[in-house]
C-alpha cells in the first residue's frame, strides 16, 4: 500500500542501481516521507551530487538539480535563500558529502539553512567501482587498499555534532518506515537536518547482514535536545543507534538573510549619494 502512496511522487524513471542496492529502499522512504507530509510536487526540490545516488531526483515528479560531485550544499543553500517556501532535499554519497564536499558541511551547519541533507553512506565509492571513501572501515579491502584500509574512518555523526547541525538522525533502508519517519522529521525541522543513512552497497561493500544486528533504535529515554546526551549516544561502542540523535531550534539562514520583495531604498536616491 505504501508504495502506492509513494506513486504520487514517483515517475516512470527506471533507476539503474545494482540489484539489492540500498538506494532502492531509501528512494521509497523518501517518497513515503513526502507522502506523510502531504507536500505538493512542485514545492519539492531535490538536489543531488555525483555518485550512484546522483539520479535520485529523476525518480520523482518534483523539481530537482543533479549538480557536481561534492557541491550539493552550496547549491541547495542558494535555492533555500531564493525561495524559503521550497522543501529542499539534498542527497549525496559519503564520498560526495565528506571527501570532495566535506569543506561545505561545517559552514552549512553554522548557517542553518532549512535543508534536509540525506547522506547515503555505503562506506565506499560505488559509482567509480569500489575505492575507499572517508567512511570505509579500517582494514576493509578495496582495489586501492589491497592490504585493507589503513585510515581511520570519520564518524559522520560526531562531525555533525561538532559542526552544530541543528537536526541529526540516522537510519537504515532495512527499516524503511523508520527511515521514512526520520526523513519526514528532518523535513519538518526548520533548519539544517542531516540524515545519516547506513546504506548497503551489495556490489562493493555489502552491509545488509551486518546492520540489522549492529543497529538499535533510539528509545524514548533519549532527549534529542540534550547535546551531551547526543554525544554520549554516538559514543556507544556496542551498537549503532538509529533514530533522532539531536535537535535544536535556531533561526534559519533565510530567516536572517532571505530575499524579499521589500525594497527600502530607491536606486535614484542611492545614486545621488555618490557625489
Amino acid at each position, binding site marked *: 500500500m505504501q508504495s502506492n502512496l509513494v506513486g504520487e511522487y514517483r515517475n516512470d524513471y527506471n533507476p539503474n542501481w545494482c540489484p539489492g542496492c540500498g538506494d532502492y529502499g531509501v528512494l521509497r522512504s523518501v517518497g513515503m516521507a513526502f507522502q506523510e507530509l502531504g507536500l505538493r*510536487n512542485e514545492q519539492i526540490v531535490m538536489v543531488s551530487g555525483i555518485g550512484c545516488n546522483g539520479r535520485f531526483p529523476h525518480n520523482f515528479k518534483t523539481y530537482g538539480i543533479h549538480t*557536481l560531485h561534492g557541491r550539493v*550544499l552550496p547549491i541547495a543553500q*542558494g*535555492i533555500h535563500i531564493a*525561495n524559503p517556501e521550497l522543501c529542499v532535499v539534498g542527497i549525496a554519497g559519503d564520498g560526495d558529502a565528506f571527501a570532495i564536499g566535506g*569543506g561545505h558541511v561545517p559552514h552549512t551547519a553554522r548557517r542553518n539553512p532549512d535543508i534536509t541533507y540525506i547522506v547515503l553512506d555505503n562506506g565506499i565509492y560505488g559509482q567509480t567501482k569500489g575505492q575507499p571513501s572517508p567512511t570505509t572501515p579500517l582494514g576493509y579491502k578495496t582495489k586501492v587498499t589491497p592490504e585493507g584500509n589503513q585510515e581511520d574512518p570519520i564518524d559522520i555523526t560526531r562531525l555533525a555534532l561538532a559542526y552544530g547541525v541543528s537536526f541529526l538522525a540516522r537510519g537504515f533502508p532495512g527499516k524503511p518506515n523508520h527511515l521514512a519517519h526520520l526523513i519526514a522529521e528532518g523535513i519538518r525541522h526548520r533548519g539544517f537536518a542531516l540524515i545519516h543513512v547506513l546504506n548497503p552497497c551489495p556490489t562493493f561493500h555489502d552491509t545488509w547482514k551486518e546492520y540489522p544486528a549492529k543497529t538499535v533504535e533510539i528509545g524514548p529515554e533519549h532527549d534529542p535536545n540534550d547535546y551531551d546526551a547526543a554525544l554520549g549516544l554516538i559514543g556507544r561502542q556496542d551498537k549503532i543507534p538509529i533514530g533522532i540523535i539531536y535537535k535544536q531550534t535556531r533561526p534559519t539562514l533565510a530567516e536572517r*538573510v532571505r*530575499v524579499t520583495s521589500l525594497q527600502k531604498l530607491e536606486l535614484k536616491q542611492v545614486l545621488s549619494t555618490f*557625489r
Partner: protein
Amino acid sequence: MDLTIRFAGESGDGVILAGEVLTYAISRIGLKIFTFRTYPSSVRGGPCLYQLRASDWHAYSQGDQLDILVAFDTEAIASHSKDLKPDGELIFDEDRTPKTYSSLRKRSLGAPFTSIAKNELRLPKARNMVVAGYVGAHIGVSKEILEEVVRNKLGSRGEELLNTNLLAINTGFGLAPKATPIALPKTPSNKIILSGNQAIVLGAIAAGCRFYAGYPITPASDILDSMVSLLPGFGGAILQGEDEIASLGAAIGASYAGIKSMTATSGPGLSLMTEMMGLSSMAEIPVVIVDAQRGGPSTGLPTKTEQSDLNHAVYGGHGDATRIVLAPGNVEDCFHQTIRAFNLAERYQLPVILLTDQSLAQLTEGVPMPDLESIKITEREKAELAEIDGFRRYAVTHDGISPMTLPGEAFGEYVAESVEHDEKGRPSFGPHAHSEMSAKRFRKLTTATKELAEDPLNVMELPDPDADLAVIGWGSTQGAIHEAILRARKNGTHVRWLQCKLLNPLPEAQLSKFLKGAKKVLVPELNYTSQFANLLRARLGIDAISLTKTEGLPFTPDEILRKIEEVA
C-alpha cells in the same frame, strides 16, 4: 585645462581620503575627473598613492606626468619626483621633510602640516584634511565646495567628526599662498563619482540582481562590501561563501530558483570556479561572474593590474562550454555592461563573465547620472505550463533557447542536469543526445551573435576609413588608448580605433566593418602572451601587432602613442 595631481605617502597617512575630497570637489565644479590608487600589499604600512586627473578636455586615463605632487613624507618625494613634469609643483610637509631636500625642485611649496594638525587642531589624524584644504585653495576650489563635499561624506558620521574635519579643511585652506596659480573653469556638474566596482554593484541592482554570493579577494572584495551596504535595502540577500566554489554554487542555486544572482572574484577565485562554470553552461542556468583581474599566474600580484584572465574566461574549463564574456572600458561602462551581463545571462541561460581589472575596479571617474527609465531589462523565457507527459526543459528549439520554469510552479517540474541529457533533462549518453544537445547549446551563441550584431554596447569606435592603422583594444585600456588616439590625430597621424567589449562571441560583423581597408592592426593589452591578439587571430584570422605590458601597471597614453607613431 588638464591637471594631474598625485598624493603620496605611507598607508595610514590618510592619503586616499585627502585625494577623494578634492576629487569630489573638482567634479562638482564641472571638470571631468579620473583617479586611481595603489594599495600597499601589506595591510598597513608601505607606500600608498592616489592620483587625480581633472580636465575640461578628454581625460580618459590617469595621464602621463604630474602637475602637482603632494608628498606626505620624504620617501614619497624620493619615489615620485621623477614623474613630475619639469615645471611641476611639489607640495610637501615641512615637518617631515628637510627644506634642503625639497628645495631640490624649482617649484615647491611647503607648510608644517603635521605640527599644525597636532598643535593647533590637537588632532594629528586630521593632517590629511589640512593638506586637502591647502591643495584645494592652491588650485582654486572654493572653500564652500570643499565644505559641501565634507558634509556630504561625513554628515552621517556625527557632529564632532564632521566639525573637526571642517576645521582642518578650513585651516589648510587658510595656509595656502594667496596667489592662486591655477584657474579652474566652473560649470557646476551633477556627475556622480564611482569606482568600477561600485558601478558594477549599482548596475547589478539596476538589472534586478537580488542575490550576491562572494568570497573576499583583492581587488574584488569592494564589491562584497558595497553589496552588503546596498543590496539588503533592495530586498536582496548576501552570502559570504566558505570559498569561491560555494559562492558560485549558491548563486547558481538561487538563479535556478528564480533570483538573478551574481558573484565576483579575481583570478585565483575564477580558476577555482572553473568546474562550477561548466555546470551553469550544461544545466543552462543564468549567472553573472565578475572577474576583477590582477597580476597572475597563481597568487601573483594581488594588488596590481593585469588583463591576463581573458584566455581562461573564453577557453577555460573542460568540455565545450558556452559562455558570454564582456569587458567594460571605463566606470560608466561598468554600470551598463553589468546590466547587460544580467540581460544576456537571462536571455541565453548561461554564465556571463564580466572582465575588469584592478585598475578599472578601483579607479574612480565622474559618471553622468544614469537615466534609469531608459534601462531595458530582459527576463528569462518562461514556459507555458500544461499537464502533459512531463515538461521538456531542454526542448530543442531553432534558436537554442528552451523556455524555463521555476520551482514552485506546478506541472513545470524537471531536473536541471549536469550530465548530458535528453529534452526532459534525463541523463542520456547515446550519440544522438550529445550531438543534438551540444548543437542546441551552441545555437544560443549563434542566436546571440545575430541578436547582438548591431548592438552599440559591443564596441566603442573612432572610425577613420582613410587610416591604414587600426587599433583594437579591450577592457580598461580604453582610456589610455582613447587619449593616445586623440593625441595621434592631433599630431596628424591617421589612425582608427575600436574598443571591443563583447569578447565572446566576438562581434565579427562590427569588427570586419571597422577593419575594412585597414592595413595594420595594433592590439595593446596588459598581459605577456598577447591573449586578445591571439583570440582575434583564432577567430577572425587577423594578424595583429601586439603591444603588451607586464608590469602590473596600466598603460600610459604616451606608451600607446609612441607605439602608434612607430607602426603607423
